[in-house]
């Protein structure tokens, strides 16, 4: 019985829901993998918070330009149609609702769409928030990409986040290794099940009441 898909399978699944022309920001870490699965020739415009649109993939080792990096401080490239701008303009784009989609990692997401992804709240940790709060509240569609369960087996989908919040009621959809969930006014709805998962089993794993929306096609719904 298979109940989980791999990180790359999940990235590929998310990529299927990205329409042509989308302006998108991919959070640091796993979400950046989504870019690897966008179809060749599909024009999707990647935004990086440090002041660029139409960011391209990592350069060859001998073409690394220290002035051309992404939010994770990794070297990137410039595609035709690119634009550079300063930090206030970059965050104006985010806060002003001009990005179509952002994909973020998560520690926890509540059934109301609250997101916790910047701090575990541990007493000895050094806090660092970066642009997470701006992305969470700014993009038209906020997608979360995450494992459903922590390493110790606890659900990351929760009634109420116990970790410090990044944003309130800001998440639209959660792509997990078990299933895809939409945040609806009445709680979470399962849009698509991976492998042999069932809604009953997911309800047990998460401890949440889950609506069945699997008759809706997630990709079509998104593109509408």
């Amino acid at each position: 019985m298979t109940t989980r898909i791999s990180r790359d399978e999940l990235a590929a699944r998310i990529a299927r829901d990205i329409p042509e022309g989308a302006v998108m920001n991919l959070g640091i870490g796993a979400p950046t993998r989504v870019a690897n699965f966008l179809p060749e020739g599909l024009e999707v415009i990647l935004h990086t918070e440090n002041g660029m649109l139409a960011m391209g993939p990592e350069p060859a080792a001998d073409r690394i330009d220290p002035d051309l990096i992404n939010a994770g401080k990794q070297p990137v490239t410039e595609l035709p149609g690119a634009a550079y701008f300063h930090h206030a303009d970059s965050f104006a784009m985010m806060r002003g609702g001009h990005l179509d989609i952002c994909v973020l990692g998560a520690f926890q997401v509540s059934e109301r769409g609250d997101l916790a992804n910047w701090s575990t709240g541990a007493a000895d940790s050094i806090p660092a928030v970066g642009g997470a709060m701006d992305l969470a509240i700014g993009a038209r569609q906020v997608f979360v990409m995450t494992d459903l369960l922590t390493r110790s087996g606890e659900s990351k989908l929760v009634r109420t986040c116990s970790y410090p919040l990044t944003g309130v009621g800001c998440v639209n959809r959660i792509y997990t290794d078990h299933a895809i969930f939409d945040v609806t006014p009445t709680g979470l709805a399962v849009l698509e099940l991976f492998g042999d998962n069932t809604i009953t089993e997911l309800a047990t794993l998460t401890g949440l009441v889950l609506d069945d929306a699997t008759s809706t096609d997630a990709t079509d719904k998104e593109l509408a």
Partner: protein
Amino acid sequence: MISKVTGSVEEAVRGIADGAVVMIGGFGRAGQPVELIDALLAHGAADLTVINNNAGNGDTGLAALLAARRVRRIICSFPRQSDSHVFDALYRAGEIELELVPQGNLAERIRAAGAGIGAFFTPTGFGTALAEGKETREIDGRSYVLEHALHADVALVSAYRADRWGNLVYRKTARNFGPIMAAAATTTIVQVDEIVELGALDPESVVTPGLYVNRVVAVGERAWLRDGEFVGAASVEGDAS
């Protein structure tokens, strides 16, 4: 004849006082004014408040300033990084104060200072620990937090080219905080690869007009360019620090 050009980085940082609030441009290493930071370190000003997106990388630049115990307080969005060991140690030892600000609020507070805006209502951070104790307001059905302008005594900025009036252009994502910090500080000090003739910068493409700049110093072409052409960098880390 107006000339904001100074002959050396030492001269450029002259007069920065103990206790000054110093904005330092850059996002990670990109756009970090390393030569000016080194000059500030040599200059000796202490008890500084530093405003930067990060809290130093590796052991050079801002990290070296921190290691020398010149910084009492840092205002930033993302101190913790893979190579922020200098800050991490000071913070855990309780030897540096941290004000953590979401990155977009940090940028907008800096922009507000330059633009004469006293405070503004931002949606970022509403309902989170970083808005605790701050005034909130609902406007047209959306919830906002009041954030105030963030001024500085000095800004240290790295740009690409300048003319003698202080007009600036930047290079790629090294632009980042430079333009807004240049406008938010009482004294703005800029390092560039080269000073070009007045009139050589296209007026349509000037990013920071000279009225925001007080002093400019040329520090030579960055290692990954030759005569303005990109020639590649052996290593991001080594060359950028």
